[in-house]
């Protein structure tokens, strides 16, 4: 069993709190992405799990055993570093073979494993070269191959595909996913790229300022963000947040009345995905002033305002809305998230 339990980890650098009580459980064989803006503590968390950094407090367990006092090499994991850390004085072959050599694997196994990992990452042509002569993306793939070659139970990857072109990245991430899934590797995958996280992950943990804001299945995170930050960070365009008045436990959206959670004040924030709307005649629909209409080919992107607050919505490409129009929108009530105007946290979904 190689499930990872991160239990109330804190990390301070001097007065600065890089991680403020992070708890997260990654099940055996699960693929979890850490997603969050630059500087939110993703690398710091990985380094604490790997044993390269000591946490200020808290515990990390792998399969029920606390690993907090263990040396990195005794934790039984592999890691892909954000800046690759590919050894410049060894050939690509020796780099990929490094972990196996440390395990005193025999030459036949080393060769087989290196060739397998190199094949997967398309780096066979460079096996005899030194990393210095490789491009950033090639070096990055060497770093990934080095980690895969040891077939770890637990794999930590810090933005492992960030330097590849879009096409190669797409291909690599599918292959990575396949390999890790069939090997049952427990994986923590740090990325900036939300489509990558959405596509690859069993679950996503969204981090912000040293805190895990939400952990969940990609679709759940997309549709029902736990906080305003998560809704704004995930999705393109980001979720719209419209502050609306509440009367008698209801919010008026055009002619429709939407039920809101109990115990709210006289204002609430309506979280709305840009595509969770359809065109409706006024006054049945809620009124939107369109400032710019951008036909994107696959869809129509409208930027404008509802209740004098900026919004972006998406309509089918076939609709004919022009810049300057005023239109009516019907909201998909199942896909509305209600948030508290004060805390920015969302309320549990209201049954319609």
């Amino acid at each position, binding site marked *: 069993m190689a499930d990872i339990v991160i239990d109330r980890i804190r990390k301070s650098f001097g007065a600065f709190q890089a991680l403020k009580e992070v708890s997260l459980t990654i099940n055996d064989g699960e693929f979890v992405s850490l997603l969050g803006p630059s500087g939110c503590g993703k690398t710091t968390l990985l380094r604490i799990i*790997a*044993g*390269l950094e000591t946490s200020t407090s808290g515990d990390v367990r792998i399969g029920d055993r606390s690993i907090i006092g263990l*040396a*990195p*090499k005794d934790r039984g*994991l*592999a*890691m892909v*570093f954000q*800046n690759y*850390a590919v*050894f*410049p*004085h060894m050939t690509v072959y020796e780099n990929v073979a*490094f*972990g196996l050599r*440390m*395990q005193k694997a025999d030459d036949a196994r080393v060769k087989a494993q290196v060739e397998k990992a190199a094949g997967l990452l398309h780096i066979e042509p460079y096996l005899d070269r*030194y990393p*210095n*002569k490789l491009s950033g993306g090639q070096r990055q793939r060497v770093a990934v191959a*080095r980690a895969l070659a*040891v077939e770890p139970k637990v794999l930590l990857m810090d933005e492992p595909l960030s330097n590849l072109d879009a096409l190669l990245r797409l291909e690599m991430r599918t292959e990575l996913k396949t390999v890790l899934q069939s090997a049952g590797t427990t994986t923590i995958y740090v990325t900036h790229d939300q489509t990558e996280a959405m596509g690859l992950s069993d679950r996503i943990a969204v981090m912000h300022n040293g805190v895990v804001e939400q952990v969940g299945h990609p679709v759940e995170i997309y549709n029902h963000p736990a906080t305003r930050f998560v809704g704004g960070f995930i999705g393109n365009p980001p979720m719209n947040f419209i502050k609306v008045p509440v009367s008698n436990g209801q919010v008026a959206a055009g002619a429709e009345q939407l039920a809101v959670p109990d115990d709210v004040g006289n204002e609430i924030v309506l979280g709305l995905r840009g595509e969770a709307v359809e065109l409706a005649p006024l006054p049945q629909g809620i009124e939107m002033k369109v400032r710019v209409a951008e036909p994107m080919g696959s869809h129509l992107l409208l930027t404008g305002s509802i209740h004098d607050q900026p919004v972006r919505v998406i309509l089918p490409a076939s609709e004919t809305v022009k810049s300057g129009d005023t239109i009516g929108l019907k909201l998909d009530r199942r896909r509305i998230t209600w948030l508290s105007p004060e805390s920015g946290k969302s309320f549990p979904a209201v049954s319609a």
Partner: protein
Amino acid sequence: MTQNRPWIPYLLILPSVAFLALLFVVPLVQTIWLALSDNGAPSLANAERMVTDINFTRSVRNTFLLTIVVVPVQIAIALAMGAMVSKVGRGRETILWIWTIPLGISDLAAGLVWLSILQNTGYFNSLLFSLGVIGRQASWLSYQTPVALFIAIAVAEIWRGTAIVMVIIVAGLNQVPKEFKEAAEIFGAGPWTRFWRITLPLIRPALQSALILRTVLAFEVFAVVYALGGRNFPVLVGEAYNWQNQNQNYSVAAVYAVLIMIISLAATLIYLKALKVDPERLP
């Protein structure tokens, strides 16, 4: 701009080239001529005089012995110091500062410091006496105790000359990003493996510089030896000094000077070849 006036770089380096030529190349040529001529005609008479002198073989042997013992010890100590100080967080600068103190002391002064410790009435004997190890003053620096004398000189040289090696090696260690060691650690390398397989290869350029510098300086050892052993422990530069000052024979002194230069150049070449730094394999 310099494309239009290609002579500007040359103009700018001219003073330094002229300065070196005047103060280095001219005396060098003169010294070589002085060594290899007799009464204005080319001759090997001075060289013959040098090698037939009773102190010649001893001085060559002593110098090489001292170099072979001192340089590796210095490199090893400097590596250990560098590795230790890289683990230190606060106070690192202070430790480095204290370690480099010997760097600021002239070699003659260093020799005199160790003389005050090791001479018959020195601190070392006082200590041994007060501990009851010896009953009366022992002598460490005489011609009757060649091994003790050698050890004393080696220790003084190591004390005096390790700081510069450490400075170079610490600079080299600072160039190596910590992720390389961390990656090695994650993939199962212990401290010893990390040192041999990661750190050492990556500080090769610094190691090469330190070795060349220290070896060349070791072949030129003089003041420390002179202070501690006088003529009991002849070395190459000491012999050159004696021929020049005591014997007033500038020509034989010149042959010694040329010999030292040849040895230093040869050592440098050997290091450059043996520790070839391949730019392709650097970070």
